[in-house]
């Protein structure tokens, strides 16, 4: 636990990628194997389920610290993180104990699943009496299943591949999938070469960058494929050993959520891995992302939902064919095989080919690009005809060329404090547009401002609060921001009658007065234009 806590603290102290990789390397070279697997699980977002309610953690901490509830809330207000607040108010460790490994703590926690409240409390109070303040902080995070760390999976992959002398692609492949740290050993996961139970494992996705400048810089148009960029869930379909597996880009196994695609089992050749987009499809064209969203969160997919939101897989790449990894083949070669597979499958209703756009000059593409939304697409994907299938986000062979986001000038009306490192600043905003002489809220947005701007907005909010409702402040209508979003839909759940997708702050319009902000009419015009 000491070693892992130390790693956590050190990672927390640096913003530099190389230093982070070095710290990870030295941890994975020196920690015991049974700890490494847990560390890997935490770093790759496999958070252990919450073992104990945070209200209980809080109650027991108050008892041990001997402070009243209101004082705890005051303290929490200054810290902004529950696990950290608890670690700070507890008394110094009073019991000397043998150092336990991360794995030992986890196995202790796992036993709590069936324990009584009394047993849980004993276990936790004992831990708090034995651990140092920083260890308690990490322990609490594990306890409450809220462990997050400022390290991307790419960095972890890089560190492991450097110490094992393997390529990052191999390591990220091994880290994928649904392994459980309680029943997997570090050696098996990282070093095992046999593919025994690896049928389900997806390949790392190739992620593209947004194109910079104009397409003319890409050189000759005949070197490039252009496809529509679909607005759905990027996913990978695997058919191996008679089973089908569907993975989302978030490395989530979503096979069960798309029963209509299980029929692919009978139509794909053994050893096939496809890359494509899951979208909902109407008679002739894709439905908006909102339709897809209605079924993602559901536990039970009723007949009604399946009818209203029918899912389709639009295939655009092939990574494995006949059980062979073909990612190093050229794009055009992979495409050719893919076309055969889709045609031979013959189930157009659920399994389509992402069409190539016919163009000779970049100008043709530019013209068509302006009409992307008519085709329910977000823009184009450009892929070099000779490119291999790379892993991770890489520049050069694939580019996304998105349409400009929709945007509107809106007024800041409510604000709320952020969490974590922004716990004392107002960073979560609600924006409104004019409906005659009233301001109607229509979107919440967080990101998009610089730290300096956030500071200024925070200063304004603190001095221009009209009302407080719990954590929310009503702010004097004065500041105007340009809000960008990816999509727009009618909504009965919102007062404005409109829901926007992925709203974000594009810029602070200090040049505009509150009366120059957009109206609900403007928003509705966008709605009818793009739906």
């Amino acid at each position, binding site marked *: 636990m000491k070693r892992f806590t130390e790693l956590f603290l050190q990672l*927390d*102290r*640096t913003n530099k990628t190389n230093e982070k990789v070095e710290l990870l390397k030295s941890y994975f070279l020196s920690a015991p194997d049974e700890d490494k697997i847990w560390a890997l699980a935490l770093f790759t977002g496999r958070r252990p389920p919450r073992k104990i309610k945070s209200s209980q953690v809080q109650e027991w901490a108050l008892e041990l*610290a001997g*402070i*009243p509830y*209101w*004082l705890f809330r*005051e*303290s929490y207000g*200054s*810290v*902004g*993180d529950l696990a*950290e*607040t608890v670690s*700070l*108010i507890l008394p110094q460790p009073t019991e000397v104990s043998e150092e336990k490994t991360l794995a030992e703590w986890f196995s202790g926690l796992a036993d709590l699943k069936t324990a009584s409240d009394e047993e849980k409390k004993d276990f936790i109070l004992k831990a708090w009496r034995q651990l140092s303040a920083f260890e308690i902080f990490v322990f609490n995070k594990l306890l409450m299943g809220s462990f997050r760390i400022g390290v991307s999976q790419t960095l972890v992959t890089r560190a492991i591949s450097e110490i094992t002398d393997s390529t990052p692609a191999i390591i990220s492949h091994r880290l994928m999938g649904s392994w459980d740290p309680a029943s997997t050993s570090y050696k098996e996961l990282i070093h095992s070469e046999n593919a025994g139970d690896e049928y389900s494992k997806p390949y790392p996705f190739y992620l593209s960058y947004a194109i910079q400048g104009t397409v003319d810089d890409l050189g000759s148009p005949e070197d490039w494929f252009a496809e529509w960029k679909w607005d759905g869930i990027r996913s990978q379909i695997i058919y191996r050993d008679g089973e089908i597996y569907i993975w989302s880009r978030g490395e989530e196994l979503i096979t069960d959520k798309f029963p209509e695609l299980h029929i692919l089992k009978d139509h794909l050749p053994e050893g096939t891995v496809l890359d494509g987009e899951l979208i909902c499809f109407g008679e002739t064209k894709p439905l908006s992302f909102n339709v897809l969203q209605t079924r993602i969160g559901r536990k039970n997919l009723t007949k009604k939902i399946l009818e209203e939101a029918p899912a389709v897989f639009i295939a655009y790449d092939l990574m494995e064919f006949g059980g062979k990894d073909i990612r190093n083949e050229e794009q055009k070669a992979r495409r050719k095989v893919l076309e055969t597979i889709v045609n031979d499958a013959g189930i157009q209703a659920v399994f389509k080919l992402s069409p190539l756009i016919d163009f000779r000059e970049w100008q043709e593409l530019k013209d068509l690009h302006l009409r992307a939304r008519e085709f329910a697409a977000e823009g184009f994907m450009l892929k070099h005809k000779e490119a291999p299938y790379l892993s991770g986000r890489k520049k050069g062979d694939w580019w996304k060329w998105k349409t400009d986001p929709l945007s509107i000038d809106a007024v800041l009306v409510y604000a709320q404090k952020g969490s*974590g*490192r*922004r*716990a*004392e*600043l107002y960073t979560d905003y609600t924006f409104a547009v004019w409906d005659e002489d009233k301001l109607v809220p229509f979107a919440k947005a967080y990101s998009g401002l610089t730290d300096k701007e956030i*500071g200024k907005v925070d200063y304004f909010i603190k001095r221009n609060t009209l009302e407080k409702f719990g954590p929310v402040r009503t702010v004097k209508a004065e500041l105007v921001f340009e809000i960008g979003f990816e999509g727009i839909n009618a909504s009965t759940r919102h007062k404005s009658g409109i829901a926007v997708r992925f709203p974000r702050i594009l810029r602070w319009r200090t040049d505009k007065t509150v009366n120059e902000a957009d109206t609900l009419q403007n928003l509705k015009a966008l709605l009818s234009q793009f739906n």
Partner: protein
Amino acid sequence: MFIRLKPQKFVTKSGHSKLIPVPGVVNSNVLNMNKPLLKFTPSSIYCPAADIHIDPWKPVDRAIITHAHSDHAKFGCKHYLAHKDSESILRLRLGEDISLQTVEYGEEFSINGVKFSLHPAGHIIGSAQIRVEHKDEVWVASGDYKLQDDGFAAPFEPVKCNAFITESTFGLPIYKWPAQADIMNDISEWWRQNRMTGKASILMGYSLGKMQRLIKNLQPFDGAVFAHGATFNLNERLRAVGHDLPFIPLITKDTDRKLFRGALILAPGSVLNTSWIKKFEPYSTGYCSGWMAVRGAKNRKAIDRGFVLSDHADWNDLESAIAETGAQKVYVTHGYTDTYARWLNEKGIEAAEVKTMYGQEEEAAEEEIIAES
């Protein structure tokens, strides 16, 4: 009439002074609240019986100053009285020609029959609690204080009283200071690692108090040390009147930048995000403050390392300091005043929150100063 009391003290291993009160000076239960000995007025803590002000934030005729921080020592009074170790800094900050009388710790003096004496507050060099006695009633105005012995300021001494005026800068149970020796070790280790990688170590903190504490405790130095002008001026001023501090060279635009590699640079927090700091590249930044106890506070500043080092009492020390005074009534000034007063009341210690202008220009206010720079 001057009476010398011999202060007693001894220091425990943790660096917290063990509290041995000045003996036998309080007849309890004589707190006269109809005619309080000290009053909180819009300009100061005022003693009507002696017509004298403590730490006024508006100009008055006669002022007793607890310590030389700018929120406690304001410009423009006709006469000042302070501890002798505050003199050089007060004259630097308020003017060389101010009318200033100085006393030793424990030295008694009377004004209109009211007895006064100053006692170590442990906050910074020359900092004092002001003991006021009249008709068997004793009040103590503590200014700012800490119980940790920092190795430079005279260590805090508890003073028995009927009414105690306390600060509450860190009056939340999340603030508990590690031992000073541990923090000094952390700083030395951070500096050592930076030296090995050829980086300068820019160590920041409040100029008056924090910097002398660092200079004093990081000795013997393991490499070159340089000072920003603000740090340099105070250091030289204190050396000139005989305080045991080493000479730290001033950084000027002519200083050879090669010398900064692996060096320790002492500077106020205001240099963050300024162009001044660029000349030290490559460098690592460290910040010394009680606020560093919370990760969020450290991360917001975009500094590499936060060191939990404060010249104020932490949660536990506030509690033991107050208990040790035996006061029946506690007045809570700068910091978490309402929270801390409520906590004392719930524990059965009668307490009231007092609004003052203190805590505006030092560690208590660092958060904001830096946020706006």
